[in-house]
């Protein structure tokens, strides 16, 4: 029996000829990413070495990436002090893949990793963030872990006792209709699977639609695979992966891609045709509460958020700017825009998108996670409703359990900003 792409990646990383779902392996880690929660990782890492008589030494500082994004600039002395401690640790340990709070090389971790070529097809990537599933977009096996597990990886260089996950094959065909794209596809899929439908499994994406999809779109779908419970989403590396890493990330060395065997074993195959897909929306308070936008159109919205690791890239901003150009954000609605990285911020500035947003009345914020997880800024008032291109709408997610969060594509968000109510962009 052949192997799925994740089985192949894990076999290589564990030094084995072959593995299959259910096997327990200890794969070498190619990249280990943390953000501000590195503060806890450092604490646990130091504790691992306590009483051993050994100095706490990281197995390979070149394989560690730390990116500040969750609370930037710091919202409190506590966060600022955590960030300061991380900076000191980074300097003392020679960690080079460090992205501080900066307008040039800063940004959201899940944008920075692809943008700087830190992730390659076939890599094993772990991150102390559940949306680490994102990097499957580049053909890597990439999954979220906790801080203590990361401390273990920093110490050993491999992940202990990893069960090889089973894989669901998702085959997507057809051409997206106007104003419908990757975000609508992944929302639709999460609605079909439910929030735990892919628990402990990998979603491996195939089909003509995926082949033609830009890396940005693939990032959006792999990013949200975790919302169906998936350990990871993955698009096996292909020409587009190589193009992206060469042209956009500046990678010069060879980029070998890992692809699944034709006779790989999948636990399930799901086929989706997007030709008739409508704009989708996830309603409060679970991401799998997905409906066509039409069904909730007309509902008043107080805050629009465009950005995040899911939809803060240049094509997302372009889609929103194209709708908003020359129009105004409705009275009684506020709109916040968060480009996913400093690089994207600069590109959107050059292209005029940020100007379009500002002229429309939106507030352009610095790159970062923004209000997505309710820790920093853009909190909602009691009984307010947000419409956001982010990835979670759990009760209290944007900082207020008495508010409601709906999730959608940049086109739906932009069309709704103009009307002040949830709006199908096909009607705008």
């Amino acid at each position: 029996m052949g192997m799925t792409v994740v089985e192949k990646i894990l076999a290589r990383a564990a030094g084995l000829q072959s593995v299959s779902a259910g096997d327990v392996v200890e794969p070498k880690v190619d990249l280990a990413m943390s953000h501000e929660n590195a503060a806890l990782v450092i604490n646990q890492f130091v504790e691992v070495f306590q009483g051993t008589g050994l100095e706490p030494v990281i197995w390979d500082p070149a394989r560690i990436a730390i990116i500040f994004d969750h609370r930037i600039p710091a919202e409190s002395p506590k966060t600022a002090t955590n960030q300061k401690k991380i900076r000191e640790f980074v300097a003392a340990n020679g960690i080079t893949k460090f992205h501080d709070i900066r307008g040039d090389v800063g940004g959201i971790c899940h944008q920075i990793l692809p943008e700087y070529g830190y992730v390659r097809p076939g890599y094993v990537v772990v991150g102390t963030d559940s949306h680490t599933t994102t990097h499957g977009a580049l053909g890597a096996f990439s999954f979220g872990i906790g801080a203590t597990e990361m401390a273990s990886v920093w110490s050993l260089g491999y992940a202990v006792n990893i069960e090889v996950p089973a894989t669901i094959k998702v085959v997507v065909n057809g051409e997206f209709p106007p104003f419908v794209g990757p975000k609508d596809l992944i929302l639709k899929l999460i609605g079909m699977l439910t929030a735990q439908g892919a628990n402990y499994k990998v979603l491996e994406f195939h089909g003509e639609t995926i082949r033609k999809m830009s890396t940005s779109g693939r990032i959006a779908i792999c990013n949200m695979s975790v919302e169906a419970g998936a350990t990871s989403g993955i698009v096996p590396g292909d020409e587009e992966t190589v193009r992206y890493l060469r042209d956009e990330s500046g990678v010069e060395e060879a980029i070998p891609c890992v692809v699944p065997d034709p006779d790989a074993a999948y636990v399930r195959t799901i086929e989706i045709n997007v030709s008739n897909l409508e704009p989708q929306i996830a309603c409060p308070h679970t991401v799998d509460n997905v409906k066509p936008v039409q069904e909730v159109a007309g509902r008043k919205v107080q805050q629009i958020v465009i950005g995040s690791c899911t939809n803060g890239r240049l094509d997302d901003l372009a889609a929103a700017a194209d709708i908003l150009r020359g129009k105004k954000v409705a009275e009684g609605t506020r709109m916040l825009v968060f480009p996913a990285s400093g690089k994207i911020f600069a590109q959107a500035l050059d292209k005029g998108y940020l100007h379009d947003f500002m002229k429309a009345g939106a507030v352009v914020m610095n790159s970062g996670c923004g209000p997505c997880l309710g820790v920093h800024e853009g909190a909602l008032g009691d009984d307010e409703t947000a419409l956001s291109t982010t990835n979670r709408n759990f009760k209290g997610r944007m900082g207020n359990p008495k508010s409601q969060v709906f999730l959608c594509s940049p086109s739906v968000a932009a069309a709704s900003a103009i009307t002040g109510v949830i709006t199908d962009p096909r009607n705008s």
Partner: protein
Amino acid sequence: MPKVIIKLENDISTDDIYPGRYMATVLPSETPQFAFADRTDFNSRLRAKEFGVGSIIVGGENFGCGSSREQACSTLKGYDVAVVAKSIARIFLQNSINLGLQVVLCPEIEATEGDELQITEDRVLNTTTGKAFNQVKLPAARKGIMDAGGLIPYTRKLLLARVQG
């Protein structure tokens, strides 16, 4: 006999267990104060130490879904409560085992607040209703970590073994 201190619905997220706005608090010694902070009544009762060690939180399907924040486990571990749920999201389950938070997978569990539960090797007995429910074993892959008392001592052992090679 340990009591059920709260019965929760399906898809309880780590945002619910430990709201994002407290994430700058990271140390396991400091996180317990914010457990279920948005469920203000339950949070106050936890903080008032109303519940004994081993008290049980009963969850539905997909308990602990969402963010990988380990605070969601350390905040509960701080009260030495146990979680009995129909199913548990991957990262939360892994974090629980890594930190030594007692979690029990019990797909058919039926219990309400105030019920007394007896957790045996392979079953959960609701002694209030007289019903018994089978457990699903925790992933065998993680047994070594559980036996070592958590991932920190387990990793420490591996490190020392490597040095003593």
